Structure formats: C-alpha cells, structure tokens
C-alpha cells in the first residue's frame, strides 16, 4: 500500500553558503510538505549531489542523480557555467529540472529554440539577468534620474560573458533614455585592487556608479570605495551584497550601497515572513536568495504534481507551465520559455539600500518603498 516516495534530486555546490542554502531550503519545504501528508499521498524524499563550481563535477552530479538515483525532479544549480554545461545531460535524461541559482538567459532560451528537446528545463528560483538589466534600467531612469536628477553614470562590471552580453544593451538603452554614460568598463573577476578603477570613476565625472557583479569580490569593492571616500555613490546588480551579513562582513563600509534583490524580510507575499521564521528557527541563520528559491521550487513542483494528478513527466511539465502560486518572493508565474516572470505583483525586483546599522531599506520601486534614500556620509 505504501507507495515509494517521490525523489527529489538536489544539485548544489555544498562548499559555498548559497549552495548549502539550496539544500537546506529544499529540505525545509520537503519536511513541511511531508508533515502535511506529502503529495498525492506519497512522501517526498531528497538526495543531494555536490555539483561544486566545476562543470565536470556538475555534470557527474546530474548523472548520479538521474542514472543512479533515478530522481523524479532536479532542483538546484548555482553557477551559470555549470548549469549550462549540465543542460544537455539533463535533457538526455529527460528529467525535469528546476534551476534556482543561475541567471543566464541562455539557460531557458533553449526551451523556446527547441521545445521538444529542452522542455524539461525551468527556472523557478531567480530572475534572469535580462530582467535584472531591465530593472536596473528602470532604477537608473526612474529613480536616479527621475527622482534624484542624476545624469552622468559610470557602469562597471566584472569581465564575464553575461555582463558582456548585458553591457551594450544597458548602455544603449540608457543613452536612448537621455542618460549620459561617461564610462563603461569591465574588470577581471579576480581583481583585488579597485583603486585604479575607482579613481577612474571619480575622474570621469560620473554622478553614480552602476555595478554589475556576481562572482567578483563585492566586499573589497565596498571597502576600497569607502576607504578612499569615493565621491560617487554606487549600486546595481551585486549578488554578494544580497547576503544578509554583507554589511557586517565589510565592517559597515557598504553603507548607502543599493543592490537589486528579490527576497528581503518584508511581506512580499503571505509566505515570506513565515519562511524566514521557519528557516531561521531551524538553521539559526538567515537564508540567502537561493534558499528561498529552492524552497519555492519544491512547493512549485509539489503543486504541479498535485494538479497533474500523476508523476508523468509530460503532465507535470504542462502543469508547471501554468503555475500560478504565491511564493516567498511574490507570485510565481512562468513565461513561454519556462522562465520566472518578473514585475509588480509577481516576483519583483527590489532596490535595497544598506543603511545605518545594517538596516535594509527598499528604495525602489516606489510602491514597495520602505524608507528614504541616503547619500554616502562624505557627500553631505
């Protein structure tokens, strides 16, 4: 009578916090669902495979989960390079994969290009970087220009493909909207000395420094920016600055930095605050965005299976495509390339500023605003 459990495969880089949060967020959701009786009367079980940040290990993790463990669904993924490398192996195994960490648009672009082969791929945890860029553009035109009246911008980003893809688009769109881009430069992800870059930004006459960072060391940038009291405020896409302990890690030197976020401890939906409490209660730390993404993805899968009424892959895919449910970051809906939709009422992009004492204040969009923008203290 007891049916075998539904097997969820978690692929995540266990060495880093974002990876461990994928595991722990998913575990939290699995346990909650099991406590309420499981899905279709079946319990959920979870297997973890460490995908590290190396494509080779990432691929073998996928193979282990699909060929060895024969999981029903894959949830996880953090580095875009690894996730991209895994894709063909996922699709060959015909296993549904909900990716939660990787932001490259190329991941889901494949679904549209060749639906039959790639229909197994979904992105349910993060917004893709194109959404981020559009959000950033909105922040620059709507807030920085519209509300603060800034005109001259410097854009600096790490030298990575996704940034290189974004940069021309961002630059052109901003110029089209009448903003002046006085400097646009990329730097090596391994850079530890930002002094020359910061000097150049200062000399360029920029009024604001827009950053695009995920793997580079945001911490050092913040510190060196503060140490030299660079008279240009900054903000943008800064993945590490999403960490709850970022402010403390840099000794408060990120004061006044603004970073895109999609999860903060705020009532984004009815699920947000309960999730934060449950996660902190269990793991004694605040979750980062991947924790929320993995948690939501487990629920999304459970929801789809319930609606499909069976585990059949194609049925579940169809159900996922029509998903519409509240999640910790807002509301989950997917577009035709199986990608998370962004926007007001859905998963929204929040521009969050670090303020005195490590408080996080949403400064944009206007409707979500929880406080006023402040300038770096040396610019008052």
């Amino acid at each position, binding site marked *: 009578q007891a049916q075998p459990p539904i097997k969820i495969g978690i692929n995540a880089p266990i060495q880093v*916090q974002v990876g461990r949060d994928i595991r722990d967020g998913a575990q939290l959701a699995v346990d909650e669902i099991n406590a309420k009786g499981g899905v279709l009367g079946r319990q959920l079980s979870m297997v973890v495979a460490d995908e590290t940040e190396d494509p080779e290990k990432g691929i073998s993790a996928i193979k282990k989960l699909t060929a060895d463990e024969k999981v029903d669904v894959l949830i996880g993924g953090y580095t875009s390079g690894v996730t991209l490398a895994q894709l063909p192996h996922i699709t060959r195994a015909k296993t549904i994969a909900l990716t939660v960490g990787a932001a490259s648009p190329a991941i889901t672009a494949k679904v549209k290009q060749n639906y039959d082969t790639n229909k197994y791929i979904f992105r349910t945890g993060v917004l893709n970087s194109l959404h981020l860029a559009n959000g950033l553009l909105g922040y620059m035109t709507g807030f920085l220009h519209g509300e603060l009246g800034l005109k001259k911008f410097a854009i600096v980003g790490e030298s990575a493909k996704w940034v290189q893809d974004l940069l021309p688009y961002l630059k052109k769109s901003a110029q089209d909207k009448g903003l002046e881009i006085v400097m646009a430069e990329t730097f*090596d992800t*391994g850079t530890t000395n930002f*002094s020359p*870059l910061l000097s150049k930004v200062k000399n360029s006459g920029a009024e604001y420094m827009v950053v695009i960072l995920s793997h580079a060391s945001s*911490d050092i940038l913040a510190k060196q920016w503060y*140490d*030299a*009291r660079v008279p240009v405020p900054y903000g943008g896409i800064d993945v590490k600055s999403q960490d709850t302990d970022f402010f403390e*890690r840099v000794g408060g030197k990120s004061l006044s930095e603004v970073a895109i976020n999609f999860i903060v401890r705020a009532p984004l939906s009815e699920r947000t605050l309960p999730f934060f409490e449950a996660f902190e209660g269990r793991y004694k730390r605040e979750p980062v965005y991947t924790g929320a993404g993995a948690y939501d993805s487990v629920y999304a899968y459970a929801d789809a299976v319930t609606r499909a009424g069976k585990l059949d892959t194609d049925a579940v895919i169809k159900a996922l495509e029509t998903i519409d449910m509240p999640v910790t970051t807002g509301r989950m809906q997917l577009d035709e390339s199986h990608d998370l939709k962004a926007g007001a009422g859905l998963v929204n992009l929040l521009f969050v500023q670090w303020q005195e004492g490590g408080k996080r204040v949403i400064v944009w969009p206007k409707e979500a605003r929880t406080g006023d923008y402040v300038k770096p203290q040396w610019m008052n």
Partner: protein
Amino acid sequence: MTEILVHGAVTSAIYAMLAVGFTLVCGVARILNLAHGAFYMLGAYFTYVFAVLLGLPLLLAAVAAIAATAAVGWAVERWLIRPQRDSNMAVMMVTMAFLLVMEQAVLVVFGSEVINVPAFVDRKFSLGNADIGGQQLLTLAMAVVSLLALWLLIQRTRMGAAILALSQDPLAAQYMGIPVNRAYGMVVALSAGFAALAGVMAGPFLSTSPQMALPALTKAFAIVIVGGLGSLSGGVLAAVLLGYAETIVAFLVSSSWTEVVSLGAVLLTLLLRPAGLRGKRAAF
C-alpha cells in the same frame, strides 16, 4: 599621474612583502614552498581571530598573528618539508596539500565569504588628487621598514651569512658548522612571518577569504620569476615593476588586462632572461 604613483606604490609594497619570503625559501632551501599562500591567509585570519573573536588590542593581535604564522611556518618545515626534502616534487606536493588543507579548514570554520579584518587606520588621505585609505599608506610604510630590516639581517648578521651559504650548498654549509636544519626552519618561519605581515596589513582592504591563498601564491610566483629565484633585491624590483605595470594598465587600459600583463611579464622574462632580472646564473 599622482594616482598611478601612489596606488602603484601600495600595490608594489604588498607584492614585495608577499614575495620576499617566497624567494628566500626558493633560493635558500631550493624548494618551491607552495604553502606560502596559506601563510598570507593565516596572517589575516589570525588577526581576525585575535582581534575580533578574542578581543585583543589590534596591535597585539597583529604581532601575535605574525608570530603564530611564523610558528606554523616553522612547523611546516619541521614536519612536512624536512622529511621530504630530498625530492622537489614531494615537497611541492606536500606543501600544496598543506595549502589545500588550510584553505579548506578556514572555509569550514569561517565560511566561504570575505571576513572583516580590522584596519589600523580608518581615514582617507589625499595626496595630490589621489584619495587613499590610511591603511593602504600604512602598508606602504610597513613594507619599506620591514624590507630594510630584512636586508640588514641578510647582509650584516651571521644568520644572513648562514642563509647565503645554505643557498649555495647545504652540505658544504654543514662543513662550516652551520646548523642546517635549524637554519632551514628559521628561513621558512621568517618567510611565513613576512607573508603574514602582508596578510595583516592588506587583509583589511583586500580580500580576506579562503580563496585568497592561491592568487597570493601565484602572484608571489610571478614576482619571484621576474626577479630571479632567490634574489631578494630582484624580488623587490619585480614587485615594483609588476605593481606599477598592473596599475598603469588598469588606469590606461582596463582592469581586466592586469592579470594578463603580469603573467605576460613573467613569460617574457623567462624567455629573455631565464634566471630573472637579478637571478644568479644557474641559481638552481
């Protein structure tokens, strides 16, 4: 212009402190001590532990961190390197494994993200139109003082003479009555101390994370090759050269080319002057 001058000097200072110890061990013990990157990391992490976790005064914490790292260096020489010294490859493997162990241990204990090592000074200074953090300037001063001290130690003391002899022929040094094993231990401890000093000084404004060890090692490598294995003056010269080359490229071209520039310099040096700028003929 002043910006290049100032920022280049700070970068060079860190590089020099990082590399002198490495080149010393290369030249004297004729081994490639890949654990060197770990010493740099330990300097910063020990400071964090002593100053932040144990709440010692910063100066005391810094001194303790350097001493502790030097002790680790001595122990590495005594227990890991010495038994393997007859094989270069074994030394490289065992020190690399040590680097990995340290990196992973730090990762497990402190997590993968950057930690905040406290700075001695938190003020901005303006030199010309260059704005620079006080800790950076202090690092520059510290490098000058410590390198001078090292130079005096080598040139003027008996320990220096022993180091020179050892670098040429350890067996012959034994015939002179030089306690070879003890001297090796001292050299590695000294070298670890210098790397730790670099970590203590730069930790507050450069990355202090488990990932800091490997790039530090690579940089030390690069400098030592350009300068010439075992040549202290060459090491300092190369540190200045690379520090400025990177700064200039970052200013004039883009920061994404800095690494390529320093690696290119390495390759060029090796091809044109295999023994480095100040390397001895057939140093090995």
